[in-house]
């Protein structure tokens, strides 16, 4: 008897699973809509980044819908899919969502270097632009080879040159870099490794010594790495961390007695979530960013007005995080997506949904100058950007900020990257990729 009842239970579970599968058929969508898939991650070790970034992204799209009724009357729609920051799950999400909406997916930003790599192979076939906003792969800035990949705003390699420039400023001139010792403490992943070649090139050019030290994923134990750093006694430590690795690095640095104001974080190491858990160990730590924190920008005020007021609820559960690093970064992604759609609509027909291929044209012809930024309400939030068929990056400037124990204080103006170093490396790496994959670069 007991045996049989458990069999029935099993049957019930199976039925439930099957029901879920059948029920998940796509809903019918209206025609005048522009669909954007959201490959987000809200669980796992990197959830802080995923929730903030996609929160900002979605809130901006939501605001455009509510304030302007969409882009020239075309309503923006989206659907989230949980990737857990895993490549295979990300790929599943991409495949699931790529054909949704009347014109298919407009663009996709998985906010993961690994997933970006996995889907950028498919993007040309599916004709869906992959925007890897300020993350890998840097060599995709060469739009001739990577037609459908856009490392917009700035890439890791650009950032790295800006960082060395900043160190040069601090040391009193680029010639003072000679003989200095810099440690590159990196996350043991594709993301972490990406700046090693560009640092090596710069080390040769400026005569400093760079030591690359890897922290295995996820990086919640770094005692041996920091003991090694203490032996090297570097002038600067570049922290190329992600997620839990960042506060751990700051705390361990304090324990071995390395000053925080000589640690220079990349932008994925410089969010509030990275420093707050480290407590006072994070004080005076410096990080790069391509946008400041803060909620005083008119665009965020618009979001508060249209999305969060009057009983409405935006995407963020914790509204205190609005205006923080990840949120503002997602906001910028939202601005770029909407500007891309707008630009494409101007060419291919206003008030009509565009295809991924047309979106590619839009993203290639972005021209967001100071005037446009002011109209958007994002002056000072991001640097002006101008992309082209050849240059899929479009900007590259970086600011540096210092943590004062409570908030990020911007300590420099926009620092331009050294394109004379970056561009040849981009072209070389892109050419190698083209050869490995048998891609013929297009003419620009």
């Amino acid at each position, binding site marked *: 008897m007991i045996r049989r009842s458990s069999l029935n239970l099993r049957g019930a579970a199976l039925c439930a699973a099957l029901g879920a599968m059948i029920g998940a058929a796509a809903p019918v969508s209206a025609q005048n809509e522009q669909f954007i898939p959201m490959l987000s991650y809200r669980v796992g070790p990197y959830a802080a980044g995923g929730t903030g970034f996609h929160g900002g992204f979605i809130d901006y799209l939501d605001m455009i819908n509510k304030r302007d009724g969409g882009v020239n009357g075309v309503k923006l729609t989206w659907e989230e899919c949980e990737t857990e920051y895993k490549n295979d799950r990300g790929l*599943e999400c991409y495949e699931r969502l790529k054909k949704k909406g009347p014109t298919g997916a407009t663009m996709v930003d998985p906010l993961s270097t690994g997933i970006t790599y996995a889907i950028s192979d498919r993007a040309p076939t599916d004709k869906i632009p992959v925007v890897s906003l300020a993350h890998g792969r840097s060599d995709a800035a060469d739009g001739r080879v990577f037609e459908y990949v856009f490392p917009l705003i700035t890439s890791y390699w650009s950032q790295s040159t800006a960082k060395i420039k900043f160190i040069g400023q601090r040391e009193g001139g680029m010639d003072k870099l000679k003989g200095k010792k810099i440690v590159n403490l990196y996350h043991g992943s594709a993301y972490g490794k990406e700046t090693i*070649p560009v640092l090596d090139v710069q080390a040769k050019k400026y005569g400093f010594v760079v030591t690359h030290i890897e922290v295995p994923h996820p990086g919640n134990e770094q005692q041996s790495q920091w003991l090694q750093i203490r032996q090297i006694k570097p002038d600067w430590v570049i922290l190329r961390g992600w997620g839990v690795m960042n506060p751990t690095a700051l705390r361990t640095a304090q324990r071995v007695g390395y000053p925080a104001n000589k640690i220079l974080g990349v932008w994925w190491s410089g969010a509030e979530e990275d420093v707050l858990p480290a407590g006072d160990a994070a004080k005076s730590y410096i990080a790069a960013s391509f946008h400041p924190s803060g909620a005083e920008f008119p665009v965020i005020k618009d979001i508060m007005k249209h999305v969060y007021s009057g009983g409405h609820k935006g995407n963020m559960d914790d509204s205190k995080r609005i205006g923080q690093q990840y949120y503002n970064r997602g906001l910028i992604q939202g601005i770029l997506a909407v500007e891309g759609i707008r630009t494409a609509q101007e060419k291919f027909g206003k008030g009509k949904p565009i295809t991924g291929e047309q979106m590619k044209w839009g993203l290639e012809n972005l021209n967001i100058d100071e005037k446009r930024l002011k109209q958007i309400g994002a002056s000072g939030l991001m640097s002006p950007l101008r992309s082209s068929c050849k240059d899929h990056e479009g900007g590259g400037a970086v600011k540096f900020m210092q943590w004062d124990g409570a908030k990020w204080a911007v300590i420099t103006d926009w620092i331009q990257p050294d394109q004379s170093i970056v561009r040849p490396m981009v072209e070389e*790496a892109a050419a190698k990729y083209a050869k490995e994959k048998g891609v013929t670069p297009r003419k620009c």
Partner: protein
Amino acid sequence: MFYREAGQFKTTYPADQQILPIRQDRYALGAILVLAFLIIPFAASDYWFTAILIPFLIFALAALGLNILTGYTGQLSLGTAGFMAVGAFAAFNFVLRVPGIPVLVAFVLAGLTAALVGLAFGLPSLRIKGFYLAVATLAAQFFIEWVLIKFGWFSNYNSSGVITAQPIVILGYEFNTPRSKYLLTLCIVALLALAAKNMVRSGTGRAWMAVRDMDIAAEVIGIRIFRVKLLAFAVSSFYCGVAGALWAYAHLGSVEPAAFTLERSFQILFMIIIGGVGSILGSFLGAAFIVLLPILLDRGVHLIPGIPRDLLSNLEFIIFGGLIIFFLAVEPHGLARLWQIGKEKLRLWPFPH
């Protein structure tokens, strides 16, 4: 009533030795093969190929490999993902560095490379057993990952250590559509599964099982433990290596060593625990459970309205964990054993006594 072997007499030795002695089973397997080879390729969408079927088949292959080692030979291994990584990177390097090499040959060589590495890491199994061996294979997992990240040669000096799989061209035909990649994967997996089934039915498999059940007794009856254990490591790693190569070539298209972390090894270990330790069918069932259930859940929880997205994502984890406990509580020997019990019941249905 329908599932009954009464009246099926075996009159020849081959009939007695065939893989599936019951006629209904043969028909069922035939139907599954027809479905997989002839119907699915025309019925399924690209989404099904790329997001569900291909990863399922590849994971089943890796689970099969681990099952040979852990399920049949009793050697607990945590290095599965490491051996997959060896396969993926070896295939990449063979295609890159040996001009004109056929891709299938590269896959076989990748499997053999993984087998060699597996042999090396299988050596400790001659002295240590059980959980201690698991720790030794854990070393393999970390060592392989470290080597692939540390030495740029393996990834052809890619700046981020990512390899991008070259196009698969066999006899001038390029496997570039999801359907063709699915068929390629299916052929390889079906062939290797058949080989595995026959291996475990033959003297080799019986030697493996003898070692698993009691190695001293096995030695006493004349089985050379040294050779048998190492053979299991080699064969298992070969399967994992081919699975890794397929993961890179037929599924993701580009992989980094971080795609083959310890987490992946555990995932495959869970597949065989849930599917059935020491069962070919169990490898497939376990892979289906671990790969497909999270996707189903993700689609399922979507339908519940009014719950914030981040809660849904966590809910998915909770349900998944709950289901694992449920199935293990109902049948600790895995889904394959459940299937077997189901078959026993079917024989008596509808008149259980």
